[in-house]
């Protein structure tokens, strides 16, 4: 005990002893002649370089601040939105989310102020949900099918190019999808698809009313095209994170390829796939430009998928620019706040699910 303590002290003292030895023993004669002795070349060099401790911690601190600024941005966005939406929140309370009245300028009120305007977000929440779920309905089977094909069946030489193509789909800007939809998709729906739907499924009430091509169905289709690559590439990622031993085990038991995919792959990756789908949902909820261009922009609730509507983002894109400061603007910002909160919850859920599968996965993830 005592001995070890002694050793420790000796070890602690060592560095200074050594440096003292270097200082004195290297050139003892010169040291006697000139007082104080000049430090060795190495020591001079090292001292000239300065002590990196301060620089290191400053560097580390700067990087940390930049990393923390990501938190700051999220908090800043939330604060700004809450402050600006405060007026509408205190005026309408939770009724804002359940009221279907959207009447910024009731007859008889001045145009540039709207103290008596009535604001309710229900039509926009409804249209957002309907168009998003419609897009999931179209996109999910296709995306999962594509992912299954690309990870489990595709010959190797096709896999790279096909994966690249689906990722290109994700890189096309929303406004270009909108442009394409306005000039190609809308005429196609109006002239070819919608008449069939009205004829065949008109009795359900989902396909009735004016057939202009614009409306929630068009929004759902364009959203499906836009979220497909995200769902598909994440699904591919979680599927390739499933260890091949699972596949081999299933095949060894005599499973067909589909049974292997179902039991070995899909069952293991299901949480991640659900996460990918929810992430796609988050995109669909927040998508603005393409939807604004094809949904027809009417603030109504209609059961028909062919009717025009306004989603939360498309309402903001249409009306925020010309809203009067005051209650109207505040109500719009509150819709933005709702959108912010919903997408944060949806994204957080989805990320956690995807992480649950891919975390700690082998290199196959890449």
């Amino acid at each position, binding site marked *: 005990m005592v001995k070890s303590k002694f050793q420790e002290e000796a070890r602690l003292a060592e560095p200074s002893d050594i440096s003292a030895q270097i200082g004195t023993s290297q050139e003892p004669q010169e040291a006697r002649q000139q007082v104080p002795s000049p430090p060795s070349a190495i020591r001079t060099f090292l001292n000239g370089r300065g002590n990196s401790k301060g620089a290191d911690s400053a*560097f580390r601190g700067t990087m940390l601040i930049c990393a923390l600024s990501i938190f700051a941005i999220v908090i800043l966005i939330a604060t700004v939105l809450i402050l600006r939406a405060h007026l509408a929140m205190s005026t309408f309370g939770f009724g804002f989310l359940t009221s279907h009245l959207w009447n910024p300028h009731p007859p008889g009120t001045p145009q540039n102020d709207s103290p008596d305007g009535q604001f309710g977000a229900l039509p926009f929440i409804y249209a957002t949900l309907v168009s998003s779920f419609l897009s999931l309905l179209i996109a999910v089977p296709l995306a999962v099918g594509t992912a299954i094909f690309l990870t489990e069946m595709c010959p190797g030489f096709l896999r790279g190019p096909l994966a690249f193509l689906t990722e290109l789909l994700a890189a*096309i800007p929303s406004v270009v999808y909108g442009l394409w939809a306005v000039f190609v998709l809308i005429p196609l729906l109006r002239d070819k698809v919608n008449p069939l739907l009205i004829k065949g499924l008109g009795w359900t009430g989902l396909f009735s009313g004016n057939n202009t091509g614009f409306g929630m169905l068009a929004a759902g289709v364009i959203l499906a095209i836009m979220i497909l690559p995200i769902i598909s590439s994440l699904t591919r990622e979680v599927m390739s994170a499933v260890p091949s031993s699972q596949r081999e085990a299933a095949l060894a038991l005599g499973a067909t390829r589909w049974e292997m995919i179902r039991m070995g792959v899909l069952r293991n990756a299901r949480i991640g796939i659900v996460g990918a789908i929810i992430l796609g949902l988050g995109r669909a909820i927040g998508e603005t430009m393409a939807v604004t*261009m094809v949904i027809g922009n009417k603030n109504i609730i209609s059961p028909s998928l062919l009717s025009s509507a306004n989603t939360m983002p498309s309402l903001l894109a249409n009306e925020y620019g010309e809203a009067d400061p005051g209650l109207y603007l505040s109500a719009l910002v509150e819709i933005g706040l709702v959108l912010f909160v919903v997408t944060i919850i949806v994204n957080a859920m989805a990320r956690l699910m995807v992480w649950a599968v891919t975390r700690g996965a082998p290199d196959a993830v890449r």
Partner: protein
Amino acid sequence: MAASTPTNIQRPPLRTSRGNHVRRNMMNILVSVLAIAATALVILPLIRIFIYLLAKGFSSLSWAFFTQQPKPVGMPGGGMENSIVGSAILLLIASVIGVPIGVSAGIFLAEFGRSSKIANAVRFTADVLNGVPSIVMGIAVSALIVLPQKHFSAFAGGVALGIMMIPTITRTTEEMLLLVPSSIREAALGLGLPQWRSVLSITLRSASAGVVTGCMLAFARVAGETAPLLFTAFGSSILSVDLNQPISALPLQIYVYAISPYDEWHRLAWAGALVLIVLIVVSVALVRFFVGRGALKGNR
């Protein structure tokens, strides 16, 4: 992988009925056909969209597109010079804000944070921030900068785009830095380099190709963003380089022209779309060329 596993090994006779066997095989074939059909359904329309865009765009593109200002309604010709210049200015501001913060945050995650609690929280927040709709970003920046100033400005637009670049750059930078073998870091430190120097001139430099392409990816993504600019940069029909004034941008102008009723403007919209697409596809292809699939999972 699984496809290469031999499946035609002779199985011992099964005790189940022959009908069951047939049913299972049919199911297998059915699902294979469905998966192939799904892929075809995804790929073929995509190719058609691309071909349509290219055809429409090239037939509308002319030299005047790059060198002329928009003409008033009804007059033929005109171009998008102001929008191209506007987009360049906006993207420059965005990069000045987004790249240093994004790269530094990525360095923190890869070199200092690793798997600490704070690093995981930053990663998570970056992923979540990535999913915040661009229109919400536009409204927040508008409420933060435009409303107090009482006028739209190029600066506000640049800030909105810059914030949107940060999460993508952070995540790709981290991913690229983690690919650098730790032996290189250790060698640098072993030679007596201070850590900041080792990170900046050894690790970051080794990963520079990946980091740069990650930045280009973020750049390409915000280059196509319209929603955050609607209420910040707002758009303008004249050539402007004043950061305090509204400014035009390519995607904004495409939007305005696309919903207009004039054929001449539609033509310009297609040409603009082609320019945007070429810019974006080239950057994405570059990214893929440099780093492979891993870096692309940041999503838009």
